[in-house]
């Protein structure tokens, strides 16, 4: 694990500039939706736009106070993505295709909640190394979160997947979204303390060095529980996400390519097994390979959604039909799973590639925070969290564009859905914290790093002596 050095410069002014540009993009999207709809510019343009602007400026001020040296582009990128998503959801609402045509005000409410919670995370944690103390608490929390929807009366199945928890009449929540954060914390904490044991102890068979089972035990338990629960809950997207997170974190911690090889083999094996035995996986893969077959198109849960999305994107072409001018509402779930298809229709290939670029920048800044971080836990956590965002984008955008089978994962920051917004904003808050700690001047953090350098390795040694 290497380190890169940067001069400690607070770059909040740059952030403010980019943030204003990002807000201009969001307001521009809202404005276009407004003038192209039948009702003309509505009240929502003012209220929702102002709400987003005020919240993100408050966030910026909070960063000036508590995370002065944080990465300057993470917040603007996130606000731009969130704003474009809001405008698109508002646009689908205006088409009044579904009974529930007030998604955008719920989404803006969730955006507010998510940003406030992200600010609270920034204020409460300050130093990400605190999270290391909660390694096993995070494991327990992940298991509880993943099991919550299985509790009768609390969990409700929606679209065949039992991943929702309903509280009261209107508030439903997907606890699995938060589990990806707690799992990343657990993997980072566990691997940063036991990295060398996993690397050095154990038998060597040919070119492969196998770790001892008891060193890997908690990892295997965490992985089996998450995959097992997800297979039972029939949520394919999340199980790919957790599996990918597991593989990447263990690869980054050990730098052994053999883990990737083993992981790929397991993925192929699991995929073939699921295709042969599980009905919903078979349908997904058929809908992907033979999307244009009429039988599959008209079948229940067939390829209609993907094909309509492809037609929409084809209609948009390079430049798109213009926000508010296309007909993206023809695609089922146009405001959540298929929001990229809706955007592809209205802002075209050029617009969607800008959005993909924004995601790419976000992920690369997360990786940059990991490179700059001075402790192994921070490196692993930042890698894991930014990889989750990247993998989510790949799985859902790849699914919508028929590169891989479509699975239901939320497009980060864009898709309608409160739990996904909340967890992704918390991820952003954690990445900002890690980058702040990575970039702030050494002098200020000397005591903190010195404490970590001496305290962390001492623990295993004491254990060893206690045994003797």
């Amino acid at each position, binding site marked *: 694990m290497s380190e890169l050095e940067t001069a400690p410069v607070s770059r909040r002014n740059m952030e403010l500039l*980019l943030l204003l540009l990002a807000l201009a*993009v969001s307001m521009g999207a809202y404005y*276009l939706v407004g*003038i192209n709809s039948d009702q003309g510019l509505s009240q929502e343009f003012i209220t929702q736009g102002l709400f987003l602007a005020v919240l993100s400026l408050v966030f910026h001020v909070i960063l000036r106070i508590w995370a002065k040296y944080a990465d300057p*582009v993470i917040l603007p990128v996130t606000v731009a993505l969130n704003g474009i998503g809001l405008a698109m959801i508002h646009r689908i609402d205006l088409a009044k295709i579904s009974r529930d045509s007030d998604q955008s005000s719920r989404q803006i409410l969730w955006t507010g909640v998510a940003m406030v919670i992200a600010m609270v995370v920034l204020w409460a944690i300050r130093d990400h190394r605190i999270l290391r103390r909660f390694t096993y608490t995070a494991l327990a929390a992940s298991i509880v979160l993943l099991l919550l929807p299985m509790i009768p009366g609390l969990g409700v199945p929606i679209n065949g997947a039992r991943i929702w928890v309903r509280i009261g009449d209107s508030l439903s929540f997907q606890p699995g979204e938060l589990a990806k954060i707690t799992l990343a914390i657990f993997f980072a904490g566990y691997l940063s303390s036991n990295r060398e044991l996993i690397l050095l102890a154990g038998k060597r068979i040919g070119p492969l060095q196998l770790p001892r089972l008891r060193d890997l035990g908690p990892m295997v338990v965490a992985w089996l529980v998450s995959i097992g629960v997800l297979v039972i809950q029939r949520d394919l997207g999340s199980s790919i996400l957790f599996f990918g997170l597991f593989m990447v974190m263990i690869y980054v911690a050990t730098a052994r390519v053999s883990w990737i090889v083993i992981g790929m083999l397991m993925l192929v094996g699991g995929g073939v097994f699921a295709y042969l035995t599980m009905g919903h996986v078979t349908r997904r893969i058929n809908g992907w390979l033979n999307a244009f077959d009429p039988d599959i198109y008209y079948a229940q849960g067939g390829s209609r959604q993907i094909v309509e999305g492809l037609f929409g994107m084809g209609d948009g072409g390079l430049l798109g039909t213009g926000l508010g001018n296309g007909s993206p509402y023809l695609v089922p779930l146009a405001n959540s799973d298929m929001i990229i298809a809706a955007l592809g229709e209205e802002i075209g290939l050029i617009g969607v590639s800008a959005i993909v670029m924004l995601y790419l920048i976000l992920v690369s800044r997360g990786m940059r925070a990991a490179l700059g971080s001075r402790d192994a836990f921070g490196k692993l956590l930042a890698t894991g969290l930014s990889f989750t965002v990247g993998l989510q984008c790949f799985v859902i955008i790849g699914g919508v564009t028929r590169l891989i089978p479509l699975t239901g994962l939320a497009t980060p920051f864009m898709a309608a859905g409160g739990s996904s917004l909340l967890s992704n904003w918390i991820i952003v808050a954690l990445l900002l914290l890690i980058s702040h700690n990575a970039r702030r001047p050494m002098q200020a953090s000397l005591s903190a790093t010195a404490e970590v350098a001496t305290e962390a*390795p001492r623990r295993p*040694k004491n254990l060893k*002596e206690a045994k003797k």
Partner: protein
Amino acid sequence: MNDLVFTVLRLGFLILLWLLVLSIVGALRRDLAIGKKARTGAPTAREIRKNPDLSPPPEAPAKQQASMLVILEGPLAGLQHELTASPILLGRAQEATIVLEDDYASGRHARLFPQGTRWFIEDLGSTNGTFLGENQLTRAQPVELGQKIRIGKTVMELRP
């Protein structure tokens, strides 16, 4: 409003979106330039004229790289360990790369690891400490050729 205005606004939005992306990339480029270590390739003549600090440093005498860890004193005196790219764990524990049979060494005493062209030594929280030259280590420090590393009664040095 007529179609022309719509078209202009539509294209204007796309331009604004890409303006955001490009200004972020521009900001990132500056970020990379701040850490001069992250620079790749030699600076151009024009960059040097603008900023004299960038001119390539006078050729340093070619440094010899360490390829051998030699134990000079202590129970293992005379042992030579070939250095590869992987870190070395020093200590009494059986999993250590060099198992020190030294009563004053801890199980996992210190770690010697390469970074770039240099080797660093880091104390792993040992009871009796690790000394580089005269000084006890408090953090990871680079080890020069011929500099004495002392752990308990064992003294070792790096040789080319």
